């Protein structure tokens, strides 16, 4: 897998990262070799294998529909870089 400029720009946009041109070059090189290495998995035939996202066959972990929280807005907002009127404050969202 060779990584093109377009691909790097695309993944950087998906990850919401801004890369300098040096960083882009380095990322292109690193990702190319890392992805090429990942492709060694293709040596393994997995046609008949079910993808496994959870190691254990645990099912149906639920909670009951009961209010258990006692919210504390001040603590919630205490880490916010900016807040106003009990809300997190962000630059204007378009639309």
């Amino acid at each position, binding site marked *: 897998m060779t990584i093109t400029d377009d691909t790097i720009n695309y993944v950087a946009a998906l990850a919401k*990262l801004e890369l300098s041109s040096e960083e882009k070059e380095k*990322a292109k090189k690193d990702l190319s070799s890392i992805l090429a*290495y990942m492709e060694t998995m293709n040596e393994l035939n997995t046609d008949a294998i079910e993808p496994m*996202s959870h*190691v254990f066959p645990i099912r149906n*972990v639920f909670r009951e529909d009961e209010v258990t929280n006692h919210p504390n807005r001040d603590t919630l907002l205490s880490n916010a870089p900016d807040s106003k009127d009990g809300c*997190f404050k962000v630059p204007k*969202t378009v639309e």
Partner: protein
Amino acid sequence: MDLTKLTALELGKKIKDKEVSVIEATQALLEKIKQTDEDYHCYITVMEQEALARASEVQKQIDAGELSDSPLAGVPVAIKDNICTKGVKTTCASKILYNFNPPYNATVIEKLEKAGAVIIGKVNMDEFAMGSTTETSYFGVTKNPWNTAHVPGGSSGGAAAAVAAEEAFYSLGSDTGGSIRQPSSFCGVTGIKPTYGTVSRYGLVAYASSLDQIGPIARNVSDCAVVLDLISGHDTKDSTSVPRDNYQYTEALIDDVRGMKIGIPKGYLGAGLDKEVKSSILAAAKVLEEKGAVVEEFDLDAVDYAIPAYYVIASAEASSNLSRYDGIKYGYRTEDFDGLADVYKKSRSEGFGNEVKRRMMIGAFVLSSGYYDAYYNKSLKVKALIKEGFDKAFEKYDILLGPTAPSTAPKLGESLSDPLKMYLGDIYTVSVNLAGLPAISLPCGIDSKGLPIGLQLIGKHFGEKDIIRAAFSFEQSRDYKGPVNNA
């Protein structure tokens, strides 16, 4: 008497017997940290005031006859800085969380506090637990107490180095692809990565949710087992927590491996393994054999593909888990921005280090439309095969034995330039996380450079007791040896 030389259990006993007060122990440790942490930089936050206040509170509880069934009551502990501590900065060693004060405690913290633990501070790590050297921390590198020109390993480098440097009696680390075991190996201490689902992940800042586990790092197997007794257990706040009947790991501290069947995966002794490490591992196997275990080599299927599968899965989950750091709710926000898109891009670009950015981009790529099947889904299938390989092995063997890492601790600055090479160093550890197995790393020798070598024992699912028993038996054959500096 230098209290900091005691193991956690020894100190716990002295506190219980009123030979030592909790405050004395806490002060002794704080003093030690003041003396040596400038050299090693194990800590991001030392909680001097909080720890002293907490120490007198715990002492009162002990004096009131409470905590009598807790063997570690009053013993100070160091916590990896990706485990949330209420009101105490939890940074994940990242600029993006440089000022984050969690509004809640991780479940493991609640459990330790209930058992009378005194949290002494938050220890250094690779940024967001991504790395094998603790060099990617925003707060500076941690050095190996055995030789400060070398790395302590990672990502729980601060947690392992603090124990080795006698700046902590024990610590909690987290292990996603070897992050407890490898630094334990590099620092000559003992660490356990429990079976996935044994220790609650609630409050552990996620790197890769399907692989992360919290575990103990301590000076010996007994300390690790007793800490695991305290922190394990079913937690209704963690849906992936697995309810079990028995969490009494100290029951397995028995010096007896007669009849135990031990398999050594041939691939774990192959090319890439340092010669001195190899002979030390084989010598350890011999010790267990002499104690009555049956040891043989065998072929472990699919394990060669563990590293690519691991890095796909871990990066994918990380790219999603780390998207919440956007400069809006907590943590770092760029100073200078024009509009929302800027807040996102600049806060994240300035707030994350290179390795984290790299993994987020790999993660975004392997999940992106058109590539999901070839990379992510393929990895989930490889993971299934790896688990199957282990299942097969455990039909024959009680535990598996091998090295923790292919070499001893590399020099500072050697690893970061070639990420792929660094990833390959995780060859013996990541498969355990993919398969959700328990494993322990404990010291088994010292190489010609004077650096410790780690022995890894892998158990079947919930087979912690098997590896603890084997590790304990092996440990009886040698004395604990700390870094020369501490001698």
